[in-house]
């Protein structure tokens, strides 16, 4: 594995204790990719996400969840019941050497542990604590019970994603939550921004801080034009198939290809796009009237009708080729079009192979590697971030981590006897 990547040592020596549930796992994973030593504190039954599928084997055991192994790359696992009274000594020793605690879950659970974290900060004033909760630690909705789906609903993402309305403007299809864990992705990315900002702050001041991150607010920031449209014009945008929600209907972007797939082919009305699309039609030998006098006249007399006709003609162009051919031919002409790929189709794409986008991680239970998307950037040549290990087995690092934190064998035996580890 490549652990020499440009930013893989950015957080070298930074120790992060990750408590809580699935809401904070993506943040911990990103921090691990930047070189932090992320220690995942799991109860003896393991994290929630060990029980989320898909699973690598029919047994569906705690070591077989791909959801867990995806979101816990590069971490160590410490099996410790953090709410157990006897766990306090272990937590105190760990926190003395730690830089960051991430805790995530419902606000009441996180707040119950907050007084402990504050005590730990007294002993280690450089400690940064980041609480990731559905609504933050205060406010009237603080204790509402939420999931990824309901966060995307209340935060505004679902309202802008879905299908075209019927001709009368009403909908017979529901709003769509685009992808599982998206709310936790957004929150995780913001948590990493907040934590790395706090680490920069600590370089200046020597002081830690408490970060109170609201998933609801994180999701709310992420709807692009929807909020400004209401704030400035008092208008609401409406969802449409495969393209931006808008105040009024726009032309489709998704178009069917010869091989039954889709491409995203925008219709920009500018002169350059019109010219190169006409070139593509001519090169493909597709009959069209875009260069006729009648069409030129239509553009002047009825731009809307002309645009609709242009869009229909693009449909014909796209339908004459396979999706990948449309993608590459259009890009060669400088059009911002792309094929609608399955995500896994990118694994063998030479572009992403050259960039090291995917990293092979071994799965002993499968006797093979799986390719994980691990990096969003290169240093100009190789991926900028990477993982030094896959996801941990439950409790794999319990003894190692606690011994390094200074717990003696006798103390470890006692914690075991009390079922705290």
């Amino acid at each position: 594995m490549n652990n020499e990547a440009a930013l893989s040592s950015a957080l070298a020596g930074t120790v992060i204790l990750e408590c809580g549930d699935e809401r904070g796992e993506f943040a911990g994973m990103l921090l691990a990719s930047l070189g932090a030593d992320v220690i995942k504190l799991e109860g003896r039954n393991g994290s929630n996400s060990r029980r989320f599928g898909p699973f690598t084997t029919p047994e569906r055991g705690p070591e077989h969840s791909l959801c867990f192994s995806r979101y816990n790359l590069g971490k160590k696992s410490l099996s410790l019941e953090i709410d157990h009274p006897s766990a306090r000594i272990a937590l105190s020793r760990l926190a003395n050497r730690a830089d960051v605690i991430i805790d995530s879950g419902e606000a009441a659970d996180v707040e119950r542990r907050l007084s402990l974290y504050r005590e730990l900060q007294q002993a280690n004033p450089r400690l940064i604590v980041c609480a990731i909760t559905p609504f933050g630690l205060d406010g009237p909705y603080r204790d509402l019970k939420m999931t990824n789906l309901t966060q995307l609903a209340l935060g505004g993402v679902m309202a802008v994603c879905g299908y075209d309305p019927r001709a009368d403007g009403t909908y017979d299809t529901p709003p769509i939550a685009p992808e599982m864990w998206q709310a936790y992705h957004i929150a995780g990315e913001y948590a990493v921004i907040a934590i790395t900002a706090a680490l920069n702050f600590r370089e200046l001041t020597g002081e830690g801080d408490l970060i109170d991150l609201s998933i609801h607010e994180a999701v709310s920031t992420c709807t692009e034009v929807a909020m400004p449209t209401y704030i400035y014009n008092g208008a609401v945008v409406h969802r449409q198939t495969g393209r931006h929600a808008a105040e009024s209907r726009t032309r489709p972007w998704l178009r069917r290809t010869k091989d039954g797939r889709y491409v995203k082919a925008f219709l920009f009305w500018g002169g350059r796009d019109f010219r190169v699309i006409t070139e593509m039609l001519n090169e493909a030998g597709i009959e069209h009237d875009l260069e006729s006098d009648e069409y030129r006249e239509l553009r002047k007399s009825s731009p809307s009708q002309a645009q609709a006709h242009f869009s229909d003609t693009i449909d014909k162009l796209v339908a004459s080729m396979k999706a990948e051919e449309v993608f590459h031919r259009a890009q060669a002409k400088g059009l911002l079009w792309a094929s609608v790929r399955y995500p896994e189709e990118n694994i063998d794409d030479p572009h992403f192979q050259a960039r090291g986008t995917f990293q092979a991680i071994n799965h002993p239970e499968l006797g093979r590697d799986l390719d994980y998307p691990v990096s969003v950037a290169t240093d100009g040549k190789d991926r900028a971030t990477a993982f030094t290990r896959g996801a941990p087995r439950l409790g794999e690092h319990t003894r190692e981590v606690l011994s390094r934190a200074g717990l003696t064998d006798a103390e470890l035996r006692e914690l075991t006897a009390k079922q705290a580890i």
Partner: protein
Amino acid sequence: MAQPESARRRPLEGVRVIDLTRIVAGPNATRLLATMGAEVIRTEWHDDRAIDLLRGVRPYAPGGDPESVNRSGLFNNINAGKYGITLNMNLPQGRDLFKRLIEKSSVLCENYSPNQMERWELGYDVLRKINPSLIYVQITGMGKSGTYNGYLSVGPTAQALSGLTHMSGLAEPMAPAGWGYSYLDHSTGYYGAILVLAALLQRRRTGRGCYLDLSQTEAGLMVSGTATLEAQLTGQPTDRHGNRMQSADWAPHGAYPCRGIDGWIAIAIQDDSQWASLVTELNAPDWAQHPRFAKAIDRKTNEDDLDRLMAEATKNLDRYDLMHRLQNRGVPAAAVQKADDRCERDPQLKARDYLQPLPHSEIGTWPIEGFPAKFEKIPVDVGGLPHRGAPMMGEDNDRVYREVLGLTAEEIAALREDWVI
């Protein structure tokens, strides 16, 4: 009383960022850096070919000069907290000034088309000779290195290629719903900020700058990671599942119609106890007592029927009333909120001061979407150092060219006269 030292300091104190970004992805990254206290200098040019398209994107603040480039609400939201200068990079004098700015800066964030900087002879190889500790984050659709290094993209292009468009929506034979906004413009912006914050930590330790080639498409691949693993495991192409939960036997799990125009509620039942509470709130209809819905696995097996019956049961109910009744019983449920709901009917966003009123020099004071976390100590301000919304075109020319580059009023006037600034 004097404030403690930490209260006056910001995480990115002393960090100057040259912001050569446009549209949404790049500006989102630098917006976050401004929020954390960096001095972000947005560098623009105002002729038709060079101007940031976002300055012309609706919604506009009402009234005023319709030809003004300072009235876009979306631009104001995404560029809050920055200083603004004009600089004609197509002139040699403009590029010389740019190099002088780079010499005095810590970070360059840029998202022009992939080879524009080389065309100006301002690639990283040139810039690092001017400033060896420079952190240069270049944002492109596919990534600057690799075989697609000349390909062009906007957020929806990258969403198509990365698999996000395909994965969002109802199952076949429905078309993908895709995403109703440029999620990858948001998310890539978050990653841009993370890379800069991490690189600054690394630079504090090593003194070294770096070049980072951030890819929007790779930001998308991070979201679809688990699905990518499953496809490798099963050999089957990734499918989409509407709003259903594929990782666990959670059902019902979706958006259901409510009273009113396009009113919906999202409900996510995680276990049998929540199901029992839901049934009670729906007045225990006969169908809900049927054994085929008794256990989680049964509900999952019969999800098509369950969703149809749920929709019948909710269609005449008020979405907020049902949400609160279900929440009172500990059932995850949330109204699908549009922007008007979030602005007018969301007490949580209001209580947490989510929208921050910030002054703008031409359009007055408008609410700006804030940072989704609160810090106990760190002063985080979406209005940045100038504590205002977005800059007007070239608003800070005098300040920046005088204070950063030490130019005299006469020199600045001459540059203006020569169409350099």
